[in-house]
């Protein structure tokens, strides 16, 4: 028993018959005679539904209410997805139908709005990172890293890609998927265990005329700021390689942008800019580079440019350098990417505009202050060492429990009983760091939250006897 679908205007019998009749047909099955009998599905698909709208809402809400959100749990997770405040105006703009339900703006004249918004997004990413060109999105930081490695190989015709020792394992796995089929070998650059600095002497020994690029993450995956990032630039440029830097854009209100310390390509995670955590997707891959023809034409992803109309010289926007892309270049395209994360880029643009010049500075300062406060409070708990690295930390920091003789997984279980979601367990990823967790604080954490964390850790450490 199926009521007429609100989404299929020509479903009612009367309309169908009229249309079939105009084709000289009497049944819709006659439109499927081109499907061989042996392949035709002779039963109904085994699926639930159809449910009325009332029931759909109830059912989906029933299932999703089994989730406990970070509004209920006090959460200290980061590691690639972050809890930041999403201003109401961001939701408002992103829900405008004309943006939400539009397609890639191939017909530029009727989609100037989306095109201008994306051009502005590109421009603001350039300002934050001190680069000249940014594309209008990749899927996420991880796949942007994979694409950066491939681009570096194309530009330099070299096949070694150097990554820092402390790198997000998710990003490393994705890098491998993108690098291996292109014949790119991933080489590890050692980082100082005390300070997190890139070991320049050993890096110099590692790079050569085979090096396509050196990549660092700054701040690091483990939250510390790499303070010799500018010297790394020299080392890789000396051998003719490219310098790729991965960033968290929320740090760029207070930290030096990679463009100012020699980066050729900047990638990063744009999710913190006006996008929700959404259980890890959709995300927003940032990809930017210098205005060097060697680089720009090898970029993956959509690029929006500014131009004028043919007749009146009014300003306008359109997709440019499409000959790099798959719909024209096919197997010789710089990437296969087609649908990307445009709406997430729009959200990020609105966020960057709302914060503006001063807002980014304020946000960065607040997070830096909170990070140091959180470090101080956690390190005051007996048996806990935080951070593990003697360096300045932004937003994330390592918390080691070896002194308390506890495992991160056990502590997190206990924390959960207190309605707290502890930091990410690093003990399997980096066993050399012992029982260490990665804690993240943002502007969403208050002083009370951090004191509560300290109290809870204290309770657990002391309670363990």
């Amino acid at each position, binding site marked *: 028993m199926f009521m007429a679908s609100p989404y299929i205007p020509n479903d009612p019998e009367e309309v169908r018959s009229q249309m079939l009749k105009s084709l000289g047909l009497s049944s819709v099955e006659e439109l499927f005679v081109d499907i061989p009998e042996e392949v035709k599905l002779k039963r109904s698909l085994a699926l639930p539904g159809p449910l009325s709208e009332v029931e759909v809402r109830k059912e989906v809400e029933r299932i999703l209410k089994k989730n406990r959100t970070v509004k209920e749990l006090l959460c200290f997770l980061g590691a690639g997805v972050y809890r930041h405040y999403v201003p109401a105006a961001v939701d408002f703009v992103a829900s405008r139908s004309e943006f939400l339900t539009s397609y890639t703006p191939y017909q530029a004249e009727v989609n100037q709005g989306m095109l201008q918004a994306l051009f502005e997004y590109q421009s603001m990413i350039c300002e934050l990172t001190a680069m000249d060109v940014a594309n209008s999105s990749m899927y996420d930081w991880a796949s942007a890293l994979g694409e950066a490695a491939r681009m570096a190989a194309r530009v330099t015709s070299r096949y070694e890609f150097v990554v820092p020792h402390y790198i997000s394992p998710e990003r490393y796995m994705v890098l491998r998927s993108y690098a291996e089929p292109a014949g790119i070998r991933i080489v590890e650059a050692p980082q100082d265990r005390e300070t997190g600095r890139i070991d320049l002497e050993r890096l110099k020994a590692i790079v050569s005329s085979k090096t396509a690029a050196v990549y660092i993450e700054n701040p690091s995956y483990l939250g510390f700021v790499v303070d010799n990032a500018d010297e790394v630039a020299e080392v890789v440029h000396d051998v003719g390689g490219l310098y790729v830097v991965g960033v968290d854009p929320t740090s760029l209100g207070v930290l030096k942008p990679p463009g100012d310390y020699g980066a050729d390509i900047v990638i990063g995670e744009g999710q913190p800019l006006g996008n929700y955590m959404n259980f890890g997707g959709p995300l927003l891959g940032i990809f930017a580079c210098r205005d060097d*023809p060697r680089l720009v034409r090898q970029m993956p992803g959509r690029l929006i440019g500014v131009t004028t109309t043919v007749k009146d010289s009014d300003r306008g926007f359109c997709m440019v350098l*499409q*000959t790099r892309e798959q719909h*024209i270049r096919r197997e010789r395209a710089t990437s296969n990417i087609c649908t990307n994360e445009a709406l997430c880029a729009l959200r990020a643009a609105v966020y960057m505009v709302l914060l503006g010049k001063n807002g980014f500075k304020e946000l960065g300062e607040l997070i830096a202050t909170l990070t140091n406060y959180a470090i101080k409070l956690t390190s005051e708990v007996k048996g806990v060492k935080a951070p593990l690295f003697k360096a300045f930390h932004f937003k994330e920091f390592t918390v080691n429990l070896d002194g308390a003789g506890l495992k991160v997984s056990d502590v997190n279980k206990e924390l959960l009983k207190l309605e707290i979601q502890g930091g990410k367990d690093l003990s399997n990823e980096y066993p050399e760091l012992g029982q260490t967790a990665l804690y993240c604080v943002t502007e969403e954490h208050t002083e009370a939250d951090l004191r509560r964390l300290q109290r809870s850790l204290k309770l657990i450490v002391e309670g363990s006897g």
Partner: protein
Amino acid sequence: MKVDDVNIPDDLYYSREHEWARVEGEGVVRIGVTDYAQKMLHEIVFVNLPKEGVSVKQMEALGAVESVKAVSDVYSPVSGRVVAVNQELLNSPELINQDPYGKGWIALIQPDNLKDDLARLLTASQYADYVKRLLKEK
């Protein structure tokens, strides 16, 4: 000579991929794409020039010309070594549209098998016949 409004200078050699070759003094060969090619491509917005010093074989791709919506490989009409490329094209790719046989030249090649290579190319009148056929098919 001309076929419809397609210019085909008499003193050049041509390939079926619409490249031209001019033998110049000291045996170097200047190459580019023909008037027919630039008309097919419409406004050219980018030229991917070969690197100076590279070696090419006859009919091997040595670069590409791009319009807004299409890319066309440029195949070398002769084997040899690229001794010069037209740097002007980097900023003014439209030179190929404006003057395909003159200011729009793409590369200068020092040939290593000129006699055999030229024998495999088309003369102006052969190329003109070829273009006539292509125009008819449209």
